[in-house]
């Protein structure tokens, strides 16, 4: 009996040691490339740093400067604007199109393929493409606008429109990706719900609003979180679509774009850039916590 217990203990120890060996590569990598950098970055945010070296300790001065930096506040406002306008649009249209291609409809496979193509295209290519479509003089969008009697718009050059142009491209590319995710969630809904409701005489509209939408709840919630996080970190489209020598670049900048400019394109603002990334992380943390709390009260179905 005693012997057996001992060998059981040895087996357990062996299992634990094996487990540690198995997770060591992952955790070592996370240590070197995430945990330590995380701490370092926070330390950098208290320093005045240039492209080379570690600079000098300046306490909270980077953060004080942020508070008075108009460009920072603009970038912060822009980022929230992109999220506030972009998230509902992406969620709405992805559910809309997913629902359409979920129907038994002729040409469904083709529609799906076409709708999904933006989702697999790299943002860099999307950016140069839309930069051309939105071109003031020769862009095809302005051509169509004039055709229907409207005025041409300097989409990427006018500070009043540039943010909407970013939203347009952002939503265009994200709807495609989330249509795939929403459709998968719709296909996961048990068919018997629909059959039962059908027998009770429910209309198609009722099926959608009383079954599909509620059962999609957890997925919609998850998608809201993912889209929010994605948009709060928007960089590529702004960086590549808007001419970086113009005023409208400053006017459309997101937090991450400003972070990139400070940390890598300006010679003595790397510490300042680190401070921006810390603020961004704090914002995302707060929003995540809020969303978790909302989830607790909002979603009772699923899981």
């Amino acid at each position: 009996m005693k012997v057996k217990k001992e060998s059981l203990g040895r087996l357990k120890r062996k299992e634990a040691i094996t487990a540690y060996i198995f997770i060591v590569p992952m955790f070592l990598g996370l240590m070197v490339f995430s945990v330590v950098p995380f701490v370092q970055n926070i330390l950098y945010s208290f320093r005045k740093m240039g492209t080379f070296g570690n600079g000098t300790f300046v306490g909270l001065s980077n953060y004080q400067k942020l508070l008075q930096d108009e460009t920072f506040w603009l970038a912060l406002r822009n980022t929230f604007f992109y999220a506030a306008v972009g998230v509902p649009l992406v969620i709405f249209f992805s559910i809309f199109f997913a629902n359409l291609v979920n129907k038994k409809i002729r040409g469904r496979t083709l529609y799906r393929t076409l709708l999904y193509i933006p989702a697999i295209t790299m943002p860099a290519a999307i950016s140069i493409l839309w930069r051309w479509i939105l071109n003031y003089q020769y862009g095809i969008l302005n051509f169509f606008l004039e055709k229907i009697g409207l005025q041409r718009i300097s989409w990427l050059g006018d500070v009043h429109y540039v943010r909407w142009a970013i939203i347009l491209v952002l939503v265009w590319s994200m709807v495609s990706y989330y249509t795939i995710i929403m459709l998968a969630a719709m296909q996961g809904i048990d068919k018997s719900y629909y059959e039962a409701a059908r027998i009770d005489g429910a209309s198609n509209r009722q099926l959608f609003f009383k079954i599909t939408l509620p059962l999609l709840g957890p997925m919609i919630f998850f998608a809201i979180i993912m889209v929010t996080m994605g948009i709060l970190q928007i960089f590529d489209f702004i960086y590549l679509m808007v001419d970086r020598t113009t005023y409208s670049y400053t006017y459309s900048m997101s937090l991450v774009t400003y972070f990139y400019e400070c940390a890598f394109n300006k010679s003595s603002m790397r510490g300042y850039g680190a401070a921006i990334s810390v603020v961004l992380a704090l914002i995302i943390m707060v929003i995540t916590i809020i969303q978790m709390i909302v989830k607790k009260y909002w979603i009772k179905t699923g899981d």
Partner: protein
Amino acid sequence: MSIRQSESLFTRIMNHVFLVLGSFLAVGPFIWMFLTSIKTFEETIQIPVKFLPDIPRWENYAIISDKLNFPRLYLNTILVALMMIVGQILIVTICAYAFDRLKFPGKNVLFLGMLALMMVPGQIFVIPRFKIMVSLHLTNTLIGLVLPGLFNIFGVFLMRQFFSTIPKELDEAALIDGCSYFRIYWNVLLPLVKSGITTLAILTMLGAWKDLMWPLINNSRAEMMTLAAGLAMLIGEHTTYYEQVMAGGVIAVLPLIILFVIFQKQFVAGIAQSGIKG
């Protein structure tokens, strides 16, 4: 097999109207990209807009290929994606196996730690990571692009889910037969989570394909760039000649679109998996 009530003719027509409109919005820009890429410069700046070129001008593709070394960019991008995929499969799946199947002290704490780390936006790591690459002389190398992307926490969550669908009796039987834990992981379980590995590979490939910021930061030399970073260079230098820029765009997107059309099922399943709740 009609679960839905057959819809009215009007609704059915509207379905198609919306879908045609949606499909056109999704693909139209790409068609425009292609049409522009075979025009002359004069045709691109013609007012009113000229939709089709008089004669397709394929030279644009040759011209842009002289300015941007596309074979090299492709090679770099594919190598980066491949190294990331292989590296992740090795590092991520064995870690996921340990978290799903083995008992060890501190398991929950470590798992929560990973979860917390996953929530942190990536920008916060970027400056220190770049400093690491500088000190390791890994700037302007492909390894420098791959290394920080190898330790994919989401991948661990994903693979753990796949492992958890396999009955535990299988491991127990193998254990009684005297299999080591590594053999159970490698010979018994890994072959059973092939669909999970495919998903991980597709998501990793899409990520490596799309990523822009890190390649821009780490690799500034043209011959070490990825496609995305190469396209970014194109904008700064040749924006006036959109027929050339669009030809570059076509070269950059067409192969993946073709790949997508062929392997649509796998792509869609992969992307759908990125939407699973953790």
